[in-house]
């Protein structure tokens, strides 16, 4: 009855090319560590098609043979309730994997074998179990009879300590042999209580003989139907039609009445009981759950008061690190590109071509690349936070505060990263499992002032509020953060409805992060940023070059940019801002620091800061400068950010974010300006 869907469905051309090894396992079992050990950091980070879950692939070499290793998302089970689980499940179902390596945590075996049983139930035969973190299990006094474990589970079991590399060679050997068909297996299949088994058989009999039998394991489909798995119900409905489906659903309801609960609970329960029985046959000594040092730290770091202090400390250090290293690098790249532009300009006679290349292309590439150090460093910081285990604690501490605004604690991380740069921040929203939470966090993210806007805010604060610089800057930050949280509340209520996700989060044990891994991983992520955001920034900067040079150069009053500014002037005047501000704001969409630079260009004074300050002071009141800083902070996110939202959430949300921010900025700008006038500023 159990037919293995995995071999039949491998596409022909795949058979010729590399054998595929899929890594499955719970989060935190050491999947990434094993992946790195197998592939030796020869890897590539991309996305699973259509979704934003990270996909990692690498090449494993064993005895001159190469294998393609695919890291599946870490999941506890294979239901259809999260993107991660669906990806892992569909990949295993697709049969594209020649071998599935199921990585289990030896120190928490019972929970890990749950996933193993789900994989076995799918009818996958070529499975190798990596019994990882064997060192921790031993330390806790757990003892296994590995030979017996192999016999009882019916697949090879390789004890590993991925951190030290122990057992990895053996794992490679077994994987390679299995991929080449040299190992036969006989995975154990969970058995349920009589009423459940009877119903599984009944449903199976209805499914037999349909095309489904060729594609899936019938028993697996039946079990998933019992748990009312939405995806499987849809699938089976297609083949059986509503009549038989209704009959099945009626049986399920009867069974639910019999057990007085939904069957997902009943089946999970019986699966655990089955696992418990298996384990008693091969676990010699179970060991004790002892309070660890990690637990003691956690009592402090998740404490409502001390936890917050810890959090402030950690993020202070993080930003110190990112800006101390990143800012000089950014300036260096900026200068390098500026000199390179000047150098190239000397060789091009034609004025239009020179402008296009120097200002449009080189300037554009320069501004993309000057983002790079900051983005890269923020990714490193994030990677270190993740790998050390602190990220989960930060989410716990912030949970109660964020929840007041309808957000989960985890969405705090992207908000903090946004102070550095919104692009990696928006990419970090991936860590939120829940679709609603993810979109909401993404939409409010641009309202958190990034470092580019900090430049504008501090410039205007210095130029117009020399006595109250800090006060002015702090009030802009406070207003925008307040609006971000308020927006979360409002958008969460009216635009992206949906139930809030329940708060459950795993706290991985603290550990020292590996710099090598952090650097390699961040490098891959940053390259992805360059690919995605790079093109759009480049196009934007060519457009700006064109608008400010045709038909006459900017400063003449005749350029398209200035004309555009005058078109918007009646509107921006509502908040006290003239056409110069309008032009600057338009150019700020490319990169927010352009807002100030554009004033320099319009006044035709280039880079001289003092001259610019005195010219602006004579043209603007303090109130207008305040409004300009505020509007710069709030209106349409910069192009790179829009690009990131588009990449992570699709066109629709990129549009919603831009429109929402624009509306918000206008409303707040008009309001603040007029209130300011009334108060006599």
């Amino acid at each position, binding site marked *: 009855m159990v037919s293995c869907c995995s071999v039949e469905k491998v596409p022909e051309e795949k058979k010729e090319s590399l054998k595929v090894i899929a890594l499955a396992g*719970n989060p*935190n079992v050491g999947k990434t560590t094993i992946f790195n050990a197998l592939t030796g950091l020869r890897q590539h980070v991309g996305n699973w098609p259509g979704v934003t879950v990270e996909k990692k692939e690498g090449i494993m070499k064993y005895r001159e043979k190469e294998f393609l290793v695919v890291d599946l998302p870490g*999941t*506890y*089970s294979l*239901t259809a*309730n*999260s993107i991660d*689980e669906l990806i892992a499940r569909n990949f295993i179902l697709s049969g594209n994997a020649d071998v599935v390596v199921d990585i289990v*945590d030896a*120190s*928490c*075996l*019972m*929970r890990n074998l*749950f996933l193993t049983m789900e994989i076995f139930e799918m009818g996958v035969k070529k499975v190798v179990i990596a019994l990882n*973190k064997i060192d*921790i*299990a031993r330390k*806790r006094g757990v003892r296994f009879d590995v030979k017996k474990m192999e016999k009882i589970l019916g697949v090879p079991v390789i004890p590993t300590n991925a951190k030290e590399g122990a057992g990895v060679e053996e794992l490679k050997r077994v994987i390679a042999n299995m991929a080449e068909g040299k190992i036969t297996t006989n995975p154990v299949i969970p058995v349920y209580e009589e009423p459940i088994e009877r119903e599984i058989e009944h449903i199976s009999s209805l499914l037999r003989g349909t095309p489904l039998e060729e594609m899936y394991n019938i028993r697996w489909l039946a079990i998933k139907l019992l748990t009312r798995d939405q995806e499987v119900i849809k699938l089976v409905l297609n083949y059986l039609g509503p009549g038989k489906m209704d009959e099945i659903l009626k049986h399920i309801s009867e069974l639910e009445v019999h057990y007085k*609960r*939904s069957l*997902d*609970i009943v089946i*999970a*329960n*019986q*699966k*655990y*009981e089955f696992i*418990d029985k298996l384990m008693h046959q091969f676990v010699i000594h179970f060991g004790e*759950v002892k*309070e660890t040092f*990690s*637990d003691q730290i*956690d*009592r402090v770091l*998740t404490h*409502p008061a001390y936890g917050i202090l810890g959090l402030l400390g950690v993020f202070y250090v993080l930003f110190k690190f990112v800006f101390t290293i990143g800012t000089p690098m950014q300036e260096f790249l900026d200068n390098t590109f500026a000199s390179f532009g000047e150098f190239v300009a000397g060789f091009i006679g034609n004025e239009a071509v020179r402008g296009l290349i120097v200002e449009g292309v080189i300037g554009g590439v320069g501004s993309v690349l000057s983002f790079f150090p900051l983005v890269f460093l923020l990714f490193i910081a994030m990677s270190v936070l993740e790998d050390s285990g602190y990220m*989960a604690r930060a989410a*716990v501490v912030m*949970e*109660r505060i964020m*929840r007041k605004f309808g957000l989960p604690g985890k969405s705090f991380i992207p908000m903090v990263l946004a102070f550095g740069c919104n692009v990696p921040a928006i990419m970090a929203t991936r860590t939120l499992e829940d679709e609603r939470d993810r979109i909401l966090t993404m939409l409010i993210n641009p309202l958190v002032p990034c470092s580019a806007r900090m430049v504008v805010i501090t410039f205007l604060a210095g130029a117009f509020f020399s006595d109250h610089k800090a006060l002015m800057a702090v009030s802009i930050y406070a207003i925008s953060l307040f609006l971000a949280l308020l927006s979360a509340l409002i958008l969460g209520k009216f635009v992206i409805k949906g*139930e809030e*996700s*329940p*708060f*459950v*989060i*795993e*706290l*991985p*044990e603290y550990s020292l992060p590996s710099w090598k891994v952090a650097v390699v991983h961040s490098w891959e992520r940053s390259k992805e940023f360059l690919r995605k955001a790079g093109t759009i920034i480049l196009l934007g900067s060519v457009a700006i070059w064109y608008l400010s040079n045709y038909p006459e150069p900017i400063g003449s009053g005749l350029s398209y940019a200035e004309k555009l500014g005058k078109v918007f002037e009646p509107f921006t005047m509502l908040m006290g801002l003239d056409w110069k501000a309008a032009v600057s704001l338009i150019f700020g969409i490319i990169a927010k620091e352009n807002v100030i630079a554009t004033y320099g260009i319009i006044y035709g004074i280039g880079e001289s800061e003092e001259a610019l300050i005195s010219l602006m002071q004579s043209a603007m009141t303090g109130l207008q400068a305040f409004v300009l800083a505020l509007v710069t902070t709030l209106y349409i996110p910069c192009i790179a950010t829009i690009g990131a939202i588009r990449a992570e959430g699709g066109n629709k949300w990129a549009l919603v974010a831009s429109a929402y921010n624009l509306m918000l900025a206008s409303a707040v700008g008009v309001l603040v300006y007029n209130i300011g006038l009334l108060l006599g500023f």
Partner: protein
Amino acid sequence: MLMYVRLTQMREGERGIVVDIHGGHRARQRLLGMGIAPGTKIVVVKSGRPGPYIIAIGNTRIALGQGVAEKIIVRREL
């Protein structure tokens, strides 16, 4: 002493086995997805309003909010 209690009623250091999960589809699926199902053996590491509650399952630790923790029914092990 009651044998069957909500997770929120367990004290730090107490052991138990999850016997049921109340609440809607969503919370249930989330907990089952995290490996908290009837039959799971737990030890309470941190307890007390307003949360978070931390439980140990084997060597792993899971933090739960007040709302979810109230939905988990545990049989105390003495």
